[in-house]
């Protein structure tokens, strides 16, 4: 079914990191359903263009070695497909911190490349969502960054459209999470409660279920979990740790490859009670206790409310209708055991009649803002440290958010004075820096070098026919600035390229480009 321009643009704004030039027109013709079906079933792995871009990506590595010598080099990505043993080999006291967390640094760069380049865009949008839902900080401790390629590549990416329980288990046993929330250091003598609390509060049941509280519009089931449950869960999960050469598995072996290991000798074998269930259950003592606990969480009604609600806001905006929430929640609950659970939930949200009905557009977070600008230009680009700096300045530290709740996903978080300012500044910085490598005056496809065709082309590309009269008038002021066309009727060469880049930076600062 054919779409209006505004609908097609809204779908691409929300379900991808922004339309490429020409993509809106394409989607207007094909309609959403075939596009969504294709996006929900992408081939595994990176497409050819993304592979090429990843292969060309160079990321600086700076450190001071044990002898005090400074090292400063720029190296290609080498850890994206590394095995656990290869990554854990960086657990070497002679290595500097930057070397230790290098795999995490590479994932940060690869996240940019994939978000801007991958044709499986919805997979990238959902990868960002789930990585942020299961947030880790790649620097605290260094092992989090060291093992990050496995969390991103094996726990998150293969499961972004799959079954939530599967992803929850993969994350729980991922080195990055085991180190980040301290589970790898817990033991029966005095269990660590960090992961035990956050897996319920942040990953599954939600704070709405703590003490059975609930929030307006999203009541809990009235039962909830308590501090006692947290303490008991910590005991259930003792023994879940990382193979470090010292801890022994059930077979008595002590592998040293950084992989997940259940260590019976530090597991609390006593009786526990969690959410009213007595452990060990019939499914067995030891590691099966933790598996049963994760089963309970994944199937819990509070998890359906909390996680499907968060996902609905991620895709549809800050204020979904009650019907949209309900549809997502119902799809979640109905597919708890389905291998395509999350895809079903996404379909239920995206194909719902209320999906595009949100009256207030959502403000782009800084990552989405910058990636959508790169994509919107259709330009050739290469990853530069500038991108990371712009994100840090904007208060969006990729894989480095300090608290395990993840980066907030609501417009108001990005509309304080610093939020407004950093987006504007970043737009110009991106367009005038070295990240964009191809000629945008050539892309304009106009031989005259005059401002009017450039304004028409780039507003059409980046904003479409929705450009307001106010914005159009403001752009007339902008092109008359001496840094752009000034009093010149036409420009050529480097002056034209500069003017067009400044023009695109200006268009990206318009209200129309701030929201999805």
């Amino acid at each position, binding site marked *: 079914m054919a779409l209006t321009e505004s609908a097609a643009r809204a779908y691409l704004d929300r379900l991808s990191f922004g339309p490429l030039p020409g993509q809106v027109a394409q989607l207007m013709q094909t309609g959403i359903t075939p596009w969504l079906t294709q996006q929900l079933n992408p081939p595994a792995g990176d497409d050819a263009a993304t592979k090429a871009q990843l292969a060309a990506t160079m990321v600086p590595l700076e450190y001071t070695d044990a002898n005090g010598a400074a090292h400063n080099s720029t190296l290609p990505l080498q850890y994206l497909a590394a095995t656990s043993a290869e990554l854990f080999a960086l657990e070497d006291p002679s290595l500097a911190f930057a070397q230790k967390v290098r795999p995490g640094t590479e994932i940060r760069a690869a996240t940019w490349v994939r978000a801007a380049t991958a044709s499986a865009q919805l997979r990238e949008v959902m990868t960002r969502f789930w990585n942020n839902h299961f947030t880790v900080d790649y620097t605290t401790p260094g092992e989090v960054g060291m093992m990050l390629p496995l969390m991103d590549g094996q726990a998150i990416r293969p499961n972004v459209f799959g079954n939530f329980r599967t992803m929850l288990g993969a994350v729980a046993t991922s080195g990055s999470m085991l180190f980040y929330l301290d589970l790898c*250091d817990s033991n029966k003598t005095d269990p660590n409660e960090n992961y035990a609390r956050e897996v319920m509060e942040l990953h599954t049941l939600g*704070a709405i279920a*703590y003490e059975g509280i609930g929030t*307006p519009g999203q009541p809990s089931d009235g039962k909830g979990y308590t501090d006692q449950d947290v303490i008991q869960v910590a005991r259930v999960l003792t023994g879940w740790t990382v193979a470090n050469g010292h801890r022994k598995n059930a077979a008595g072996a002590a592998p040293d490859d950084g992989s997940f290991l259940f260590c019976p000798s530090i597991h609390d074998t006593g009786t526990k009670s969690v959410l009213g269930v007595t452990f060990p259950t019939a499914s067995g003592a030891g590691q099966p206790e933790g598996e049963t606990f994760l089963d309970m969480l994944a199937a819990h009604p509070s998890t359906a409310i909390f996680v499907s609600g968060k996902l609905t806001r991620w895709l549809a905006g800050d204020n979904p209708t009650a019907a949209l929430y309900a549809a997502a929640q119902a799809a979640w609950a109905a597919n708890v055991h389905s291998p395509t659970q999350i895809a079903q939930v996404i379909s239920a949200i995206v194909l719902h009649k209320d999906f595009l009905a949100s009256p207030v557009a959502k403000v782009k977070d800084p990552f989405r803002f910058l990636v959508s600008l790169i994509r919107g230009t259709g330009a050739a680009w290469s990853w530069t440290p500038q991108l990371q700096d712009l994100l840090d300045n904007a208060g969006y530290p990729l894989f480095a958010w*300090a608290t395990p709740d993840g980066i907030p996903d609501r417009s*108001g978080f990005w509309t*304080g004075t610093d939020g407004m300012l950093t987006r504007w500044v970043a737009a110009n910085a991106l367009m005038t820096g070295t990240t964009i490598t191809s000629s945008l005056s050539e892309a304009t496809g106009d031989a005259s070098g005059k401002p009017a065709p450039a304004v028409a082309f780039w507003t059409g590309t980046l904003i479409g026919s929705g450009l307001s009269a106010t914005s159009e008038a403001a*752009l007339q002021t902008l092109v008359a600035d001496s840094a752009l066309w000034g009093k010149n009727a036409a420009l050529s060469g480097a002056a034209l390229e500069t003017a067009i880049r400044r023009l695109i930076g200006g268009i990206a*600062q318009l*209200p129309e480009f701030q929201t999805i």
Partner: protein
Amino acid sequence: MSRLRSSTISRRGFMRSAAFGAAIASLPAGTRLAFGASGAPGPTIVVLLLRGGQDGLLLLAPADDSNYVAARPSSLRVTNAGNGAGIALANGPTKQDWRLNPAAAPLAELYTQGLLGFVTATGLEADTRSHFQAIDLIETGLTDVAQVTGAPGWLTTYTGLAANVSMLGVVAAAPQAEIDWQDSTAVVTIPDPAHYTLPLKSDDAFLRAAYAGGSLSAQALQTLNVVKAVDTAVAADTTKTAGLGAFAGVAQLINMNVGLRMVTVEFGGWDTHNDEENRFTTNLTNLSSQLAAFWNAIPNFHATTTLMTLTDFGRRVQSNANGGTDHGSGQVMTVLGNGVAGGRIYGDWVGLAADVLDAGDVPITTDIRSAMWEIVAPTLPGRKIGDLFPGVVSTPTGIMKSAAAARAAN
């Protein structure tokens, strides 16, 4: 929650408000723009959020308390003998050997000078050990999480109560403030005044034209006004920011004398579930030296500036198996300023015997809202605690000179 970055972070302030921007916007325009006014500076409250839940018992404790000694290894205690012994503090709440963690030596100096005091065993009587709920409650001054949604933060309320608040009167010194997403105008967030500018000056006119209307118009125009004001003021600012760390921006904002009444700044890294000895020591060393440097960097504003700390909660009395401590209850509030009746530890201390602990945690003896009120009350003449925290009863600890005087007069 895991280890917050132990370096100085100031990522999020914690004004939450649908009404915060509106409170500013509702002031008469002349009042709003009266920044940079000459004359005596008004009072400034610095709210320092120690995100993560600072272990008050490793900051400040009766080192000779037998229950304390029994609950933790010496590495997680303030001790009174040997290498790394705590700094003895006069005027503790009990006749015990109260000591301050030696990593906080710069704070001990301020304490001795009578500029810095502590309120011990303070917090909110709310049954939460969740970081995020605890912060929500501290921001709203509520004890019931179910009431948080839609409730105004107390900073918002403060802004409404304070007279003559300028455009730069209430600031989060961070990229973002915690706000209600429905907020229709911008919260003033200034992480770094020195880099708070539009590099291309012509963008100001362009952006004013572009945002003359539309849904983000109010936020955009306020941003442009704030940027212009900061640009002007920072050009004349001579603050030496070396060594100020997380407090560099706050010191500049104060020295700029632009009518700052309330500023929030964050210093995280206190969620010490493991390896607490190293992490806490490093963090406290940094915080203490930066805090002392901050105080020295604002010599003209000592009479008008008061700083208070807030943290999610204190930590469990008993340490865990990983050389750390889990989420607890009663916290220690640190208060700094000329108006502080410093050199004393305030708040009732009932000890750490098993029968007085709150589920293994330091029991709260001072409602933190009462303590916060006590600290901000001198800046809100004629107001009552109920204006800021409805339904809360004031029980002054005496930590502010004005409150001490008032209590003595009664």
